[in-house]
């Protein structure tokens, strides 16, 4: 066969394939074929029943209603349907409007961390309330946020949640542009009359994890893999370090930054570096169970390194090494918000001071290796055998201390806070006077490390 023959065959084959694709696409995408439908004559029992229901409804709504009859004495079905219109209009006025809520996520819902947590919350409230419909967009970049908001508003959404710090300004812009829509922004500080903010805060749990870490470390070196050096993460590391210090005053907390919220490989490498340095307990802020897997591997190698669940239950990834952890229940916050919007408690004019900062007391966060498992039973004996001297509680086991602190921080008015002075920073500067509790502002802008931390907070640009 000549060469040109081959080319002809090849291109013929290609053309045939393209034709088939076109045909299939046309067939599936084309609007439905016109069909001749026989309209059944409306009469008999169904019509009588409809008339009856309409009459009953009209009585409840207090509207006059007559069942239309034909000259022959049958029910006039067509007229009956037309007469229903005012009834339906009146009924829909009385029934409260549905809420259509949109969620805009920065990451993929499968990240097993931040976005996964928000989406779990969304699904729970979506199933719980029949009057609530939810839609979402995942992996939305900051630059695209505003366009997604506009698109969702066009689709009829009347409540918009944006769940990334970087969405703050686009959300505010949209709140000003669309004064009839209600907005809630997660993790920011800018509000408007129709835009509130919310956050589920973990520092109490990091402190509790720190107590356990301090009891479990044999080398006196505890590690922390941090995502980004921002006040939120710094606050969590400090809370963790304060817990470690309370149980084990000589232990040090070694910090490594990975400069990513979600990067399993970097998390693994940072953890390995810490372990090589002699660390035997690691806490972390990274949205995947990678570090738990690393610790479980070291356990199998006969060199146990313990860790904690972060955001989602990670017990199943390391049943031998996950001691406890911090779990989130965004649904508690979402539930509260959607109910209050539904009942009209929150409306387009009164959100300027609505700021959720929910913790243990509100049930927005949970201490646990797994939902319902505050401490992995495997570690209970060790924690019960380790005793500390508390100025108020006296000689107490670490296990009991954790449980008491958990209870104290869950009370209506928490009777304990980890950030109670005296607290010194790395330079020896007194950051909280004895007995003083750091306030919301100090926690929200924290840029210093507690004195038992080894590591620095990189400054932006430096």
């Amino acid at each position, binding site marked *: 066969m000549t060469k040109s023959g081959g080319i002809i065959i090849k291109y013929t084959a290609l053309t045939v394939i393209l034709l088939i694709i076109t045909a299939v696409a046309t067939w599936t995408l084309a609007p439905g074929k016109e069909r001749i439908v026989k309209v059944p004559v409306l009469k008999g029992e169904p019509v009588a029943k409809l008339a009856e229901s309409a009459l009953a409804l009209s009585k409840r709504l207090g509207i006059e209603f007559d069942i239309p009859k034909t000259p022959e004495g049958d029910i006039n079905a067509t007229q009956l349907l037309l007469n229903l219109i005012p009834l339906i209009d009146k009924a829909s006025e009385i029934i409260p409007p549905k809420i259509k809520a949109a969620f805009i996520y920065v990451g993929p819902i499968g990240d097993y961390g931040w976005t996964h947590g928000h989406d779990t919350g969304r699904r729970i409230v979506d199933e719980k309330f029949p009057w609530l419909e939810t839609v979402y967009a995942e992996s939305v970049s900051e630059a695209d946020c505003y366009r997604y908001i506009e698109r969702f508003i066009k689709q009829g959404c009347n409540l918009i949640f944006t769940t990334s710090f970087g969405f703050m300004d686009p959300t505010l812009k949209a709140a000003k542009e669309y004064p009839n829509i209600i907005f809630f922004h997660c993790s920011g500080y800018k509000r408007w009359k129709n835009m509130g903010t919310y956050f589920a805060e973990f520092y109490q749990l990091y402190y509790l994890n720190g107590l356990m870490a301090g009891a479990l470390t044999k080398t006196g070196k505890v590690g922390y893999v941090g995502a980004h050096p921002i006040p939120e993460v710094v606050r969590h590391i400090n809370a963790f370090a304060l817990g470690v210090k309370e149980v084990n005053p000589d232990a040090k907390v070694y910090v490594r930054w990975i400069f990513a919220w979600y990067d*399993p490989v970097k998390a693994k490498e940072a953890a390995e570096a810490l372990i090589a340095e002699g660390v035997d307990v690691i806490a972390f802020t990274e949205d995947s169970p990678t570090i738990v897997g690393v610790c479980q591997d070291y356990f199998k190698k006969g060199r146990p390194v313990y860790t904690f669940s972060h955001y989602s239950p990670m017990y199943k990834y390391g049943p031998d090494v996950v001691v406890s952890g911090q779990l989130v229940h965004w649904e508690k916050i979402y539930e509260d918000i959607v109910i209050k919007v539904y009942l009209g408690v929150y409306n387009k004019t009164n959100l300027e001071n609505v700021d959720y900062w929910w913790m243990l007391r509100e049930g927005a966060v949970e201490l646990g290796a797994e939902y319902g498992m505050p401490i992995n039973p495997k570690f209970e004996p060790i924690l019960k055998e380790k005793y500390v001297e508390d100025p108020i509680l006296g000689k107490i086991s670490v296990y009991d201390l954790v449980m008491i602190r958990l209870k104290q921080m869950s009370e209506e008015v928490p009777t304990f806070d980890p950030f109670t002075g005296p607290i010194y920073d790395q330079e020896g500067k007194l950051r909280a006077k004895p007995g003083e509790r750091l306030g919301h502002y100090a926690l929200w802008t924290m840029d210093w490390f507690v004195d038992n931390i080894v590591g620095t907070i*990189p400054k932006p640009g430096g």
Partner: protein
Amino acid sequence: MEHWLVPPLKVAIEAGTPLLLASLGELYTERSGVLNLGIEGMMLMGALSGFIVALITGNPWLGLLSAMIVGGLMGALHAFVCISLHANQVISGLALSMLGVGLSGFIGKRFVGIPLKATFGVSPIPLLNKIPILGSILFEHNVIVYISYILAIILWLILHRTKMGIMIKAVGENPAAADAAGVDVYKVRYVCTIFGGVMAGAAGAYLSLAHIPMWVENMTAGRGWIAVAIVVFATWDPLRALLGSYLFGGVEALQYWLQPWGIDPSLLGTLPYIATILVLVIIGSSKRLRRAMSAPSALCKPYIREEKVV
């Protein structure tokens, strides 16, 4: 107690292995004159399919096999578009990368958060791992790492010591001359491009079955692109690719060792690319080096066979 050099070098090899596997495949593809920028996407699809199959069958080897098949299929697609249809290799490669990122994210959604039991665990080689220092650096890894050592050597031998290697190089340098000498240019390019895909798939499977045994979206995080850079850095030589992979893998992993000394990790992250540019500059500055080490002359150029007048 182990020597202080052991943990960092061990980690460098672990982190370098996926780079090595992917860059060895890409190296052969480019040697035959085809540029494949789809490595990132092929690695992701390999990682996902390997994970799924290992999860279902409970056998990591089947996972690895399926990853190689999926990678190979994507390589074949690239080959068909670039070689048979003479399409632009850059565009096809970029398209495959994006396809792989998107498709693996979409299909993989249901598999996020599932722990994988069937993995390639660490299996030290007896006796060899007793060699002081070197033993634990080189011979306390999972099986894929050992395979990659052998592959690098074999691929070097094939490229530089066999007729097959000469054929591949000839096709990449001057396809018309190779064709005239009776080499089937299309066939060689097809085989090399599919091989590149297979290796990228295997590199992906290493990530999801051995390195971090789980599926996470976009878990390659740019490794496919570093692999492409390594091929240039290694000046299209398998053994230098081995060196480059461990170097770049090490740079990435060791930033956490260096962090306490205040060395910025994002700066370290740029090192592979700076090193690659430096290599290009050095090669470009010398005529002798240029002849010996520059890119295959026919790289990125589709070969269209002239009609023979009979």
